């Protein structure tokens, strides 16, 4: 008897929302109850999501909220399952990770409730299969993530408000697009909608899809809207950042997948105008993605604050996902989905590690850290592998996905996107190495003598995620199987996966057998280790600090920025310096201040003097009379 028959997506959602409420009230009494309950609920939800594999369910939830009775649908399919499993697992692991990190912090009880609520609304966004419930869960997700960011206290006020304003603006433009679709087609259910799409006029499609895409581009921090991303990711409480940048940023991509391929469908997309075999709408998104990747890398290189560096890096990695998504061939969509999975894995580990390090050293400045490799071996090892995957060193899963995206771009001969992506990936190597060198290598500053690995609750999630990354690196076929079924659901020709043994990854013009290459690589690593062990005695300890103070006595604690990691890539920065000055933040701030000034002026209309109000009334009447006389 199939036990999993009774599991349906809406039970997962109800479980999580009820769990959030229970955890809040239980948490008021004992913190133990709070931790165990939140772990229990998120673990249960993760289990239920996992058991939903391969199910195509669609269930109606009747309490409709609009006058002509639109009912709300919740269902699962391969694409949603792929994203749901990422979101669920990340949430579960982040909750486990955040227990030691968030202990004793401000409003801790609210943290777990809001995380469960966020998990519920994220899964709600993914599971909903009609426009209205999609929008409702989207708004709930924005609200709960805003509240979570504000938990970090006074520092995060400005970042949280900017984040809320921009994402609400995106949500409202999405609402306009959704209402256009609903009013034009009369229905909100995705399958009914996509059935009616083929015949519709093209410019209507462009307008509504464009408006909806704005909402998703804001969430995935694409070019014009990436302003909120770095401050929001870095100012959020350390317990929340892995979930925020690891899982939440994927929802923008999911939305685009949903609307471009599931609702509008590939044929109608091409019908909207194509550019060298790729839909021009998709090409625009790909372009935006690659430019974001490039610019975000530039910012990441200059960052000295560990969390802001990782924040900019996740903005640029999401740019890759958008690029793959935009191109729209079977290879690029597979690459983008695979990269979404990998990015979720390694970015979460990096942020967890960063959280642990910040809790340990008390500072976020990389120039004040160093040499932690010896003291924190497990964190070092897990972050090392994730950094390799981030930098797309060959044979890591990160490499696999980026390689697929590049193949697709080159195959289509995009002379502008592909080189931009290459330079960006070089940049990603640079800042990941900076992270590695500044935090782990070099000598241990005297203040950090007693550094040791964080508690078990932190290391287990990191180890789990890194082992999955390594597993996918060796056996790429497993994730690609899920991706292939998602692609076929989206109506795109799925990527071939060797059913026999899951090691080959590739397509018509090139493939590599991951297992063979991995063994060679391990063997090479072994040789290098041996050589290093023998020659180790000759290696000289290099001091972390430059000492060109021409004779001055130099005490370590002075912050002259002499630490190697302080301005690691100064030469490169100098190259881009002039262009980086025109940052986009300035335009947003200018707009904000401009509107404040404007409303200051508008406020002056109410001058407080009765006579001016009488003038307004009589003037209004005079205007009406002139209109009445001449126009009516």
């Amino acid at each position, binding site marked *: 008897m199939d036990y999993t028959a009774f599991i349906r997506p809406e039970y997962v959602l109800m479980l999580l929302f009820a769990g959030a409420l229970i955890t809040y009230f239980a948490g008021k009494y004992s913190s133990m109850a709070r931790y165990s309950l939140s772990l229990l609920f998120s673990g249960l939800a993760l289990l239920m999501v996992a058991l939903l594999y391969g199910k195509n369910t669609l269930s109606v939830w009747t309490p409709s909220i609009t006058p002509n009775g639109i009912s709300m649908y919740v269902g699962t399919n391969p694409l949603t399952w792929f994203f749901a499993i990422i979101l669920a697992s990340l949430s579960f692991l982040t909750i486990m990770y955040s227990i030691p990190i968030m202990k004793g912090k401000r409003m801790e009880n609210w943290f777990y409730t809001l995380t469960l609520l966020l998990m519920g609304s994220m899964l709600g966004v993914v599971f909903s299969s009609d426009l209205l419930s999609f929008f409702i869960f989207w708004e709930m997700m924005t609200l709960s993530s805003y509240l979570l960011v504000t938990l970090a206290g006074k520092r995060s006020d400005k970042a949280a408000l900017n984040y809320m304003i921009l994402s609400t603006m995106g949500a409202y433009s999405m609402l306009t697009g959704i209402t256009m679709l609903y009013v034009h087609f009369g229905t909100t259910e995705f399958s009914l909608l996509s059935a009616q799409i083929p015949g519709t006029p093209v410019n209507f499609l462009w307008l509504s899809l464009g408006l909806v895409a704005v909402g998703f581009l804001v969430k995935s921090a694409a070019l014009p809207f990436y302003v909120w991303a770095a401050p929001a990711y870095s100012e959020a409480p350390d317990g929340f950042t892995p979930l925020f940048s690891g899982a939440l940023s994927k929802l923008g991509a999911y939305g685009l997948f949903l609307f471009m391929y599931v609702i509008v469908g590939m044929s109608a997309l091409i019908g909207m105008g194509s550019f060298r075999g790729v839909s021009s709408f998709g090409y625009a998104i790909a372009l935006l993605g690659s430019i974001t990747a490039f610019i975000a890398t530039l910012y990441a290189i200059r960052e000295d604050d560990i969390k802001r560096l990782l924040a900019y890096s996740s903005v640029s990695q999401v740019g890759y996902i958008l690029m793959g998504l935009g191109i729209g061939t079977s290879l690029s969509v597979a690459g983008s989905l695979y990269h979404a999975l990998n990015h979720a894995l390694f970015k979460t580990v990096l942020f967890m590690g960063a959280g642990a390090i910040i809790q340990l050293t008390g500072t976020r400045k990389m120039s004040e850290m160093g040499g932690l490799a010896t003291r924190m071996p497990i964190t070092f090892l897990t972050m090392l592998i994730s950094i390799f995957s981030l930098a797309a060193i060959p044979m890591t899963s990160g490499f696999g996905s980026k390689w697929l995206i590049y193949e697709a771009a080159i195959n289509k001969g995009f002379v502008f996107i592909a080189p931009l992506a290459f330079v960006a990936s070089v940049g990603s190597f640079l800042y990941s190495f900076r992270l590695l060198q500044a935090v782990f290598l070099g000598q241990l500053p005297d203040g950090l003598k007693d550094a040791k690995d964080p508690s078990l609750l932190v290391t287990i999630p990191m180890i789990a995620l890194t082992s999955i990354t390594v597993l996918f690196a060796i056996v790429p076929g497993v994730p690609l199987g899920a991706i292939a079924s998602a692609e076929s659901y989206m109506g795109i020709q799925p990527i071939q996966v060797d059913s026999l043994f899951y090691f080959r990854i590739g397509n018509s013009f090139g493939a590599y057998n991951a297992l063979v290459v991995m063994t060679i690589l391990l063997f090479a690593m072994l040789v290098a280790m041996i050589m290093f062990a023998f020659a180790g005695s000759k290696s000289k300890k290099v001091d972390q600090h430059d000492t060109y103070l021409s004779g001055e006595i130099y005490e370590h604690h002075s912050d002259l920025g002499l630490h190697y990691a302080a301005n690691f890539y100064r030469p490169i920065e100098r190259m881009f310096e002039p262009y980086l000055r025109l940052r986009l933040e300035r335009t947003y701030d200018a707009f904000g201040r401009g509107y404040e000034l404007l409303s200051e002026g508008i406020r002056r209309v109410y001058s407080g*003097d009765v*006579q001016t109000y*009488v003038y307004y009334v009589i003037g209004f009447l005079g205007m009406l009379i002139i209109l009445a006389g001449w126009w009516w």
Partner: protein
Amino acid sequence: MIYYMAAAFLIAIGIYALMLKKNMIKMVIGLSLMDSGVNLLLISLGYINGGTAPILLNGVKPQEVVDPLPQALVLTNVVIGVSVTALALSVIIRVYKHYKTLNSDKVRDMKW
């Protein structure tokens, strides 16, 4: 015809007082002038050439009677006018108690 002129003039002079005179009591005077103007307008609407007062006593025939409905409306409006004026003036007395001035320019604490 000249009644319309008188009514329109009264309304105009009422608004003139309201807009250009700073003194609050002058404004209330303007309001009450405007009220009389509106009443005059209503009554002159109801007038019929050669009609008599709408009281059907001692042989007055219904055909030659002026339209009574506007007169009923004006009756109501006169009383409304006086009650609003009385309330406005008592509020002005209290304003004077606090602000010590009747000049509407000075009574502007709540602005923007």
